[in-house]
């Protein structure tokens, strides 16, 4: 017992000193939590519109535009590869520091998955999201729901997760040893956006759509039990806290996804009677221009800054028209 505790304490020390921390350069999830807590400290109702989602949300929306259009501060709390189960726990923590009036849930997080059986990239994304959360008690509470017994220790310890840096990336270990402590964020204001794509679809990909058809099929994008349960929990939490809930589907290029109506049909029962802006609907044809979408044929297509701008305007109009 003493031996295990002593070894555990040493691992905890290494974790505290962030010896095996990943490169912080691109950790925008950590940055989001930092600013959310900062705004929350300023005043509880500093954020009016909170957007939950994954990379689709932080590349597909411009919170500055949304804030300006609505006259209410909007914030994107999203993490790469996030699923709605994790979004629920992020929301739970976020509500301890802020009290938004409107919660926007981006629907790309609502998929068919088994949360505790995640592997590979999905699991890595889950670790990153979990690591950046700040409330230890809420993290502990959510651990059994987010991770299997075998993965939980990795979620809590960078040392267990990244100790292979000793061989793979010794330069980073040595950098971390020289720069212990949490990263410093210098922006005056940050609302959670992260623009990755500035140029749109180009001829070869457009040609490929014509040649091979859409890489995604709405009919195959079902909603699993775990996702449906998490949406129910989010709905209940919003009801309890008096927060208006709405859903948003940020689109992919219309030739990127076959049978969007099937995707709509999958999501409809989960969304229920909550307001829902489904921008994948072909009726929103103004948004389906090549300059709005990431130049990729890969399944997971994001928006460019132009697309994000258009989406933000459409979302703002939807919120205004529905008086949300």
């Amino acid at each position, binding site marked *: 017992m003493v031996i295990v505790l002593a*070894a555990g304490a040493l691992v905890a020390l290494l974790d505290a000193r962030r010896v095996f921390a990943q490169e912080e350069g691109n950790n925008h999830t950590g940055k989001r939590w930092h600013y959310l807590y900062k705004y929350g400290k300023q005043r509880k109702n500093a954020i009016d519109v909170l957007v939950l989602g994954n990379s689709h949300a932080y590349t597909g929306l411009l919170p500055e535009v949304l804030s300006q259009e609505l006259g209410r501060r909007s914030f994107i709390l999203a993490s790469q590869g996030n699923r709605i189960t994790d979004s629920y726990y992020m929301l739970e923590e976020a509500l301890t520091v802020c009290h938004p009036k409107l919660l926007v849930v981006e629907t790309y997080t609502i998929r068919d998955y088994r949360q505790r059986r995640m592997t590979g990239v999905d*699991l890595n994304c889950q670790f990153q999201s979990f690591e950046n959360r700040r409330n230890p008690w809420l993290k502990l509470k959510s651990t059994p729901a987010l991770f299997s*017994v075998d993965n939980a220790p990795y979620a809590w310890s960078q040392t*267990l997760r990244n*100790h*292979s840096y*000793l061989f793979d990336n010794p330069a980073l270990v040595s950098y971390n040893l020289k720069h212990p402590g949490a990263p410093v964020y210098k922006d005056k204001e940050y609302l959670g956006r992260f623009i990755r794509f500035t140029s749109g679809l180009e001829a070869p990909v457009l040609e490929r759509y014509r040649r091979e058809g859409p890489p995604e099929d709405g009919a195959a994008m079902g909603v699993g039990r775990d996702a449906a349960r998490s949406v129910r929990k989010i709905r209940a939490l919003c009801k309890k806290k008096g927060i208006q809930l709405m859903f948003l589907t940020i689109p992919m290029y219309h030739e990127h996804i076959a049978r969007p109506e099937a995707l709509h049909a999958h999501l409809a029962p989960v969304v229920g009677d909550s307001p829902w802006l489904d921008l994948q609907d072909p009726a929103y044809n103004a948004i389906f221009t090549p300059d709005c979408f990431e130049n990729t044929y890969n399944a997971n297509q994001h928006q460019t800054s132009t697309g994000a701008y258009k989406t933000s305007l459409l979302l703002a109009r939807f919120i205004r028209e529905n008086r949300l």
Partner: protein
Amino acid sequence: MLFNSFSYALFLPLVFILYWLPLMKSRRGEWQNLVLLVASYAFYGAWDWRFALLIAFTSLSSYLTALRIDGSEGAARKRWAALNIAVNLGILAYFKYAGFFVDSFVALLSLLGWKGTPPALHIILPVGISFYTFQALGYTIDVYRGRTRPSRNPLRFFAFVSFFPQLVAGPIERAERLLPQFDTRRGFDYGKAVEGLCLILWGLSLKLLLADRVAVYVDAAWKGVDGLAGVPALLAVLLFAVQLYADFYAYSEIARGSAKLFGMELMVNFRRPYLSTSFKEFWKRWHISLSSWFGDYVYIPLGGNRKGAARRVCNVFIVFLLSGLWHGASWTFVAWGFLCALFMVTLDRPMSRINGFRPLKITLVSGLWALSLILFRAPDFPAAMKMFSAIGFDGFSGLPAYGLGRTELIFACALVLLLALQEVLWERRGGALAAKFLRQPPAVRVLCAVFALLLLVLLGHYGIGNDSRFLYFQF
């Protein structure tokens, strides 16, 4: 549930606490047996709950037939024993060899000109089926021979067959050794528990520091066997011999250590096999529980070496061909068994006539063993042939690290040398070294253990979603 998983790190202490609950004292240790039985079925069922049904059936059939054997005489006794052997081997044949037999039969038919599609069999291979089937078989044969009294208490017997530390990869225990340990209440022995923890730590070190690390190189080299040549191929072959040993030895030590935590003793399965000077000696040191099982239940009943040289050679080949088949349902394993037998019958005699040259003999035995393992590791014969022909002594300067960084490969090789040194030291002064360590003040021992654990945490080859199974699980 793997020994090197966090779930086992939770499972083991939980079972330990329940097992030693002071309030639950029963005179004959029935509480302890019940805890072990439930824990073992939970452990095995964690892979697939249907596996638990299978082991329950094997246990039940062996339990009932042993009672029948004991209660009958003459031909009836023989019939009951034969029935049990048929049932156990039938289960093994169905789950492990059905696909192999069908494929081989179809291949034979196609040689004769038949053109057709073989039926697709969807049979899951239950983890460790060969191990517990052999353990149950050994029990009924021992009862038949009158070497063991049949167990009349189903709880004890079921706990014996399914005892989780050795359930999925041995050691294959004999009833006369292990079964009596379930008959009495075990008292807690602090020294034994500490010894058990040391064995677990040692096993984990072998697995995580060495076996899984060299596995990266070996797997990558085998994956790219088409482009492999020279020293990298030689290194892949040698490192696989290290991997197999470290992996299986690790499992056996963790199994022994876990058993000791419950006051139970399991047999030693490895005794520094790579220091053997003959193949006969090698098989007395490698996977001892299986070698002695084949010796007792196959080789000796066939006549052993009592019926002349020709019969001895024949018996050796039978045993090794069966041993090859036991390891896997594939012709490469059969060929591996054949090669092992060939080494034993052709090389042992000439080597025994030469006095001295111990290091040379050790190198020859271990080197030929490593070469034979090409057949053990290869997915098929063409891949094995490619590996055999790729081995050489050129291309050392541009040695690719195959999945490991260069530093990590050097580290792995350094660990191999350390293990070799430890084996030599242990061979010469094993007991003395252990006693010297145990004589140190507790603080020194604790510090050593903390250091070892930390080394394991920082330098161990483990990671997210790591499903690094022990190699012998597949058998």
